[in-house]
């Protein structure tokens, strides 16, 4: 059925992708280099842009690292532990996917802003940016690790234990290696999401220089060339992350 329609279907799908995604992205690249490569280079090496890139990348790396550890831990509890309310907890994990990111930002103002009920004044600092990003990227690692953990053969673990392996050894030699592709893929997605996040940060970033907010400010100040140049840098990083995920995924499948 599909063999004949394959060509037409592919054509239509590619056309839709082109109109919605590819042509607009091409326009970004064209704009970034519209005044020559020198101007592009100047735009992405101003101290403001370099700072924002450094802050964005470092915070995103930290987010990915914390997300990898806590996400794996949460996935473990959801799969291997039994307690009342577990199903509800499992559903709550998806909340950051369901909740609009601007609401996530607003909740952080409510919690850590000037009128914080706990006296924690985190808003408008890097700490607030970190918490906001941890919130929006929470499901990535959990949802990547969970199915692998469910499928994981308990017999291998039991064999290791019966051969005298300690818990630590079993975790290090049996469980973690099996989970590694899923953890890396989940953390990479979280990283990619973090470097581009805007909605959750726009209210609480304050003077913290975040790449996406600099782009937004450039657009508002009518300097699309600068905005497009920084966008190209972010796009390249995002593409590299996508490549990494594909390679890890391919290795995990074999």
């Amino acid at each position: 059925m599909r063999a004949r329609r394959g060509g037409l279907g592919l054509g239509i799908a590619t056309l839709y992708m082109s109109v919605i995604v590819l042509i607009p992205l091409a326009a970004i690249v064209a704009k970034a280099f519209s005044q020559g490569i020198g101007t592009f280079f100047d735009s992405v090496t101003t101290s403001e842009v370099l700072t924002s890139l450094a802050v964005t990348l470092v915070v995103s790396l930290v987010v990915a690292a914390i997300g990898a550890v806590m996400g794996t831990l949460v996935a473990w509890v959801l799969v291997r532990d039994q307690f009342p309310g577990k199903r509800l907890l499992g559903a709550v994990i998806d909340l950051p996917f369901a909740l609009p990111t601007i609401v996530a930002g607003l909740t952080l103002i409510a919690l850590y802003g000037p009128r914080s009920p706990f006296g924690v004044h985190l808003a408008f600092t890097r700490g607030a940016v970190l918490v906001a990003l941890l919130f929006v990227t929470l499901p990535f690692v959990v949802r990547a690790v969970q199915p692998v953990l469910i499928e994981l053969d308990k017999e291998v673990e039991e064999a290791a234990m019966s051969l005298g392996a300690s818990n630590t050894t079993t975790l290090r030699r049996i469980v973690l290696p099996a989970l590694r592709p899923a953890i890396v893929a989940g953390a990479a997605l979280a990283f990619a999401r973090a470097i581009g996040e805007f909605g959750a940060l726009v209210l609480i970033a304050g003077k913290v220089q975040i790449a996406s907010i600099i782009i937004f400010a450039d657009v508002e100040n009518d300097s699309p060339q600068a905005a497009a140049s920084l966008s190209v840098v972010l796009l390249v990083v995002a593409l590299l992350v996508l490549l990494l995920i594909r390679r890890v995924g391919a290795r995990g499948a074999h």
Partner: protein
Amino acid sequence: MRISRPATLSLRTVALLYLGVLLLLPLGVVFARTFEHGFGVAWGWMTTPAAVSAFWLTLLMAAIAVPLNTIFGVGCALVLVRGKTRGRKILDSLIDLPFVVSPVIVGLALILVYGQSGWFGNWFQQHGIRIIYAPTGMILATIFVSLPFVVREVAPVLMEVGDEQEQAAATLGASPWQTFWRVTLPSIRWGVAYGVVLTTARALGEIGAVLIVSSNVAGSTLTLPLLVYQRDAQIGSQSITGAYAAATELIVLSLVVLVAMSVLGSRRSVAR
């Protein structure tokens, strides 16, 4: 692994605390802030003309973007999984782009294509079609950011169910169209439904991409997330209650989405 009782309990406690502090506490505080001046005040903010039109515009965005991306998603998944044409590998690797492209970049890209000095801006302007700073541009942005969900949910299910039944149907004389409606679609329906829910969630909540291409005028191009942003930015202590009120509306919408997610999610894993 055999984990001792205390270790299990402490792992559970850490996970619950982490999720509680990160997810549930913030929601509680937003509800508290929304209703701190009484229910009437919050209701007042939710029923201003700006809020009501923002509510409907938000739903309209989703109502247009979700069906389009669903049709594209199912078709594209079929092409990727069942097709034999060369070039589908390239399409496959491009599908995920919207997941990793920053929303502000999406907004900027649309301006560069459809804006006044954009690639096609002149043409559209001559024909009296306004895209940027109008709902059309906001819809394009919403379609962009929510594009991959259905494909990514449906493709693995298609791969899992295999094509034996489809071939059997074809052998028995079913047309491709019949085979799709009677065999393929029923076997992937939970995957499609889950993808639709994810698409809806993203479409309802998008801000970055939409903010850039919206004129942010109440009554015409203001969605609920934009209303939250605008009311938060207004000086004066009352409008922040309005921001919380709009946020509460969005939270209620997303809780509905979340319930659908968990119901469909378990259905989907049973079906697999």
